[in-house]
């Protein structure tokens, strides 16, 4: 009931943001012993935002972590439930890397290669046909002579979206498939979705679990290629070998500078109405956005978060202070 007063911050949402939120929450509890350590739930951006948009009050959560920007329809739903003032905080970027077993040779990937290996339909001899390639070397002789096996994020993951947008869409264009598709279907939306359709014959495997599962799959199938978050790769660099994309090796630097093409921003959303009422909430957000945490030398960056550029971080802090709402 409403009578029980709450004195602990409650956070829910994306499992990609979770490790960062955990580090912050833990440090927050240690450096500000006045407040209890916040509770950070995992359950996906969708679940987090759903709880977030349940309403305002001590029996609803304060913060939703998200690995994608909140959607308009979700803002609508929030508003309908009385959550009218939402503050958005961007915490940095998540690099997305392609890696294979550490025992393999170095790998240099192009969006085009990935597209041809993984798309549902490719252009062969100027015609659009169901993907006939079985081996990486069929796609590009420079690639290993091994059966295609790619462990890509399942459709429930935000990472998949980035993968489609930054790799498949580009590869589609580069390989000339886009033109072939344009010639076939008139509807633009359908063109776009055909361009990012992944083959379903079992060579491209959706992973709906976390990166540990991808790692286990690569362990079981050494010639497979998996998609990982940069932080995960860095923690398992001894077992994995990362591939360059368009010749750029992923690192915090190359991603921050935008050289490495595949990354996405991470966010959390705060209920403004809770700021003055839930003990420690404001302090938590300030603590999170401080350079001690999300700065390039902070523990988050050490874990693998790609810090936003200095100016952007300053902007983020200012925007929060100013109480800007969405």
């Amino acid at each position, binding site marked *: 009931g409403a009578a029980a007063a709450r004195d602990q911050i409650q956070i829910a949402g994306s499992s990609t943001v979770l*490790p960062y939120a955990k580090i912050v929450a833990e440090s927050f509890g240690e450096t500000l012993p006045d407040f209890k350590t916040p*509770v950070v739930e995992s*359950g996906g951006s969708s679940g987090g935002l759903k709880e977030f948009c349940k309403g305002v009050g001590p*029996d609803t959560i304060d913060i939703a972590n998200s690995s994608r920007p909140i959607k308009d329809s979700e803002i609508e739903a929030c508003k309908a439930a009385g959550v009218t003032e939402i503050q958005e905080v961007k915490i940095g970027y998540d690099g997305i890397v392609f890696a294979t077993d550490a025992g393999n040779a170095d790998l240099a990937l192009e969006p085009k290669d990935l597209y041809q290996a993984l798309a549902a339909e490719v252009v062969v001899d100027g015609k659009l046909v169901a993907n006939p390639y079985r081996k990486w070397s069929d796609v590009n002789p420079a690639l290993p002579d091994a059966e295609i096996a790619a462990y890509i994020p399942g459709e429930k993951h935000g990472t998949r979206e980035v993968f489609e947008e930054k790799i498949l869409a580009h590869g589609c264009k580069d390989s000339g498939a886009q033109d072939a598709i344009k010639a076939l279907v008139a509807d633009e939306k359908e063109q776009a979705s055909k361009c990012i359709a992944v083959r379903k014959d079992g060579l491209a495997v959706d992973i709906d679990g976390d990166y540990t599962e991808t790692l286990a799959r690569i362990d079981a199938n050494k010639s497979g290629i998996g998609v990982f978050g940069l932080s995960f790769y860095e923690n398992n660099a001894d077992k994995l070998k990362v591939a360059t994309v368009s010749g750029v090796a992923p690192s915090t630097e190359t991603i921050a500078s935008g050289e490495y093409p595949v990354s996405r921003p991470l966010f959390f959303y705060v209920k403004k109405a809770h700021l003055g009422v839930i003990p420690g909430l404001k302090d938590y957000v300030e603590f999170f956005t401080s350079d001690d945490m999300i700065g390039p030398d902070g523990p988050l960056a050490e874990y693998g978060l790609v810090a936003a550029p200095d100016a952007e971080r300053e902007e983020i802090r200012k925007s929060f202070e100013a109480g800007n709402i969405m």
Partner: protein
Amino acid sequence: MSQVTTSPATAAFKASVRPERRDIGLRRRYASERRFRLYGLAAIAFGLLFLFLLLSSVVSKGYTAFLQTKITIPVEFSEQVIDKDGERATDPKVLMTANYPVVARNALAKVLGVDPGDRAAMREVGGMISDSVRVQLRDLVVADPSVIGRTVDVAILAHGNVDSAYKGQIDLGVDEKNRKVSDRQVGWMNQLAETGALAGHFNTGLFTNGASSRPEAAGLGVALVGSLYMMLIVLVLSLPIGVAASIYLEEFAPKNRFTDLIEVNINNLAAVPSIVYGLLGLAVFVNFAGFPRSAALVGGLVLTLMTLPTIIIATRAALKAVPPSIRAAALGLGASNMQTVFHHVLPLAMPGILTGTIIGLAHALGETAPLLLIGMVAFVADVPATPLDPATALPVQIYMWANEAERAFVERTSGAIIVLLIFLILMNVGAILLRRRFERRW
């Protein structure tokens, strides 16, 4: 049938010459008997083999989690670092917020003979020590502020990477920049190990600490307490409710469409995927009844609902198996239905009920999915004092650790599984002892 007259002389081979021995297919039937028996043994062997494979794979991966590398060094609680301006008398906050990691880092640097001015080296020295040293030293100082200015031997948690390296879980043959410990750190580690400063200790933190993002400091404390609360709630609620419901349905309910409906309904509830119970718990206990999120109470209630059908089905089967003549005997003596059930039928059904309860509880103990939706798959650092505080559960902790990126969490995941299995085995043993008591066949 055997009209053959046999003299003593032919007695020796009489059995073989008896003419009318019917052929009742003995060879075939015995072969089938042996086969049947063998199938049974093979089935049990099959189950036990996989149990063994599973357990050995878990144990071989996880036993190291029970050891934790610590570095025992003399730490100087320098007033310079902790309370430069001597404000602690007036402002107790100073002691809380002092820079303890530096204290620890300096102490280690001194032991290793590293120049405190060498910033790069000092960073690596700092990387040898767990970040949780802040809390460790702070608690020491706050408990006894008189240590300030003195030098005390403290066993400091080694960093997770050092821990993994020390346990040989990091392949040191890999290129230095592809692993989490540098060659220099490995050198220091060996140096400290030789002097005995760095050594594996029994990992009590694994059982007492709450969740942490640092593997070396992460423990099952919250999960253990949470699971304990939940199991108590499940046991206290589901056993009596389940047994009561079964008694009603089996012994009292009129046999009609409505009770058929209940029966089908209960069987169906056993089939409902567990995550659906999470949806139910979220809607009913959190949103409607207003219980707090992430609380063991809600988890216990959800698991109770999930376990009930299992217990009810098993209990009904056990009640059904009690011979009707026992009921008739009691009723004939003038015992009421209620007395008959509670005095005779229930005790006889007890072994079956307990079996069902063990299975149900074990199921509940290992369940993660429903807890996801009520906020128990979460990072919770503080050990819950009551079932209303945020908590996690053992399988949740396993699930979360399994998804951690750091190598040091791999052994902890298996270690946590071992703990969970021990939890489970203890429960089983308890129930078996109980069952023995009841199973006493008269």
